[in-house]
């Protein structure tokens, strides 16, 4: 038997930040439990939650803001695991600038923000927290290319810490420039990042399948984050992500580890309910959703 066939839609392209997903697939963890899973890359235009509803996928990875927004609009979905314990969305800046030790240090800087993106919500929350008004900083809209940061037109630029962050750090290091990262979590703002989601129907009708899938997936993640299995993990990633060189991939993996499993005691997949609530609150305050969605009722920690 080939097992039950379905798709698993990721949030982003294959690279080190989806190491566990790749690993579980490569090592046949899904096959072992009788599942025939196709792991598919994501992109901004492809939305896992849509695919759950349309039946194109049975499971997917979505960011917390996507989940909350979808719930706000009546989507029937559940979060079954939280992959990132620390949000990789952080800001990079050069070491020839003073380090940001308190939020007040943000004042006077030219900060990049993706209008409409999570980073806008996060940064606005930080500003509110520190009592910083738009007059105290310069905000520049950010696109997909880093040229304004490279050209020093913008000082503080949003990046995904474990993928782009590593690449940029390396690039600048080659020119003899050092970088810092500004992590909002250090200042008490925990905006949840990627989580595994599935549909209400799936939860109801196929709880066994959900459990089987998730266990296989989390096993993949645990192994992938295990420093002892680093070589194997890197090997599996390399097959799908040829564009990155080995050294960078290695660095990316170690950063990813610190975001997925910040300490040995935390089990991968743990849903940080407090952080979810904070995320919902932030979005409510920013008028990204109209009403509370009671996010805690949609979080199911599967043992």
């Amino acid at each position, binding site marked *: 038997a080939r097992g039950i066939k379905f798709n698993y839609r990721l949030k982003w392209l294959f690279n080190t930040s989806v190491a566990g997903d790749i690993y579980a697939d490569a090592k046949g963890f899904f096959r072992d439990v009788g599942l025939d899973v196709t792991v598919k890359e994501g992109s901004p235009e492809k939305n896992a939650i849509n695919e759950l509803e349309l039946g194109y996928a049975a499971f997917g990875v979505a960011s917390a803001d996507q989940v909350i927004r979808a719930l706000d609009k009546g989507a029937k979905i559940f979060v079954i695991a939280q992959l990132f314990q620390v949000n990789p969305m952080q800001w990079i800046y050069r070491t020839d600038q003073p380090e940001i030790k308190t939020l007040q240090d943000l004042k006077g800087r030219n900060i990049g923000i993706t209008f409409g*993106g999570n980073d806008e919500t996060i940064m606005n929350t930080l500003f509110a927290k520190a009592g910083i008004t738009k007059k105290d900083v310069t905000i520049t809209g950010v696109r997909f290319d880093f040229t304004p940061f490279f050209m020093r037109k913008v000082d503080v630029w949003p990046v995904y810490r474990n993928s782009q962050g590593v690449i940029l750090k390396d690039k600048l290091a080659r020119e003899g420039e050092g970088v810092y990262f500004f992590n909002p979590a250090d200042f008490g703002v925990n905006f949840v990042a990627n989580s595994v989601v599935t549909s209400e129907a799936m939860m109801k009708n196929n709880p066994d399948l959900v459990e089987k899938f998730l266990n296989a997936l989390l096993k993949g993640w645990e192994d992938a984050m295990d420093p002892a299995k680093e070589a194997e993990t890197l090997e599996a990633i390399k097959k799908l992500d040829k564009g990155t060189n080995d050294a960078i991939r290695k660095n990316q993996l170690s950063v990813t580890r610190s975001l997925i499993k910040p300490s040995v005691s935390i089990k991968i997949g743990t849903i940080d309910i407090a952080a979810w609530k904070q995320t919902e609150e932030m979005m409510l305050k920013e008028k*990204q959703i109209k009403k509370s969605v009671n996010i805690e009722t949609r979080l199911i920690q599967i043992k």
Partner: protein
Amino acid sequence: MLFRRIYQFLIVYMVAIAFLWMIKMGLSLSDYVIPGIFLVAETAGQVAEEYVFDVINTLSIAVLGQALSIVLAFTVGISGRKSSWIGSFIKVTAYNIQAYPIVALAPIIFILLGDGFIPRLLIASMICYFPLLLSILGIMATPVEDIEHFYIVTGRMRWQLEVKIRAFENLSKLTTVISGSATLAMAGTIVGEFIAANAGIGYSIRIALYQSDIAKILVALFMIGIIISIYQGILETMGEQIKNKWSISKEGVVL
């Protein structure tokens, strides 16, 4: 003409939306995947005013960009019409630039021009000029022998005259292409805004996309459609007038 364009657009839009809603009901999809009628109406109420200004902002760039691309297409088309080495070289350049997806060129454009108005205009006209160029090349490379013969044999042929003759003889083709390219200019501007600007409807679409807000996108598409229909209608009317003024209804039309 103008009114016809507008209500025809309304029909097209309504049909498309109805189709989406049928899918929504058929598959009982949530508002997140395909927004329902109330959500769209509510969203329209919230953003309509803002989007109108955005679209007009975009249109103003599109009009400029179209003008620029007409100039560009004629320049390249006229200088590339000969099958000489230099003519084919110009064509190769023009074609190659086109082949590059604008997203790949965007970082380079940014390095050279910074962001803001200029790159937005540049991207719009780069997307718009090529189809114009193709038509103009085709027209400019085809001799009108029975008119040109005299000027050639008497040594009176100048490139300006040649261009004028060929343009005139293909006036209706040219006006079709030019007024049709308005939509390309608009699409080009929106793409430009999408990747390089902090204003315009393209920028608003990008934000809506980040938030997976299909309702906003549907409202934006509606605004774009209406404005395009109006702009296009005006251009077509102008084209007719130019045709009637410059040329004269042919014999065959009268009898």
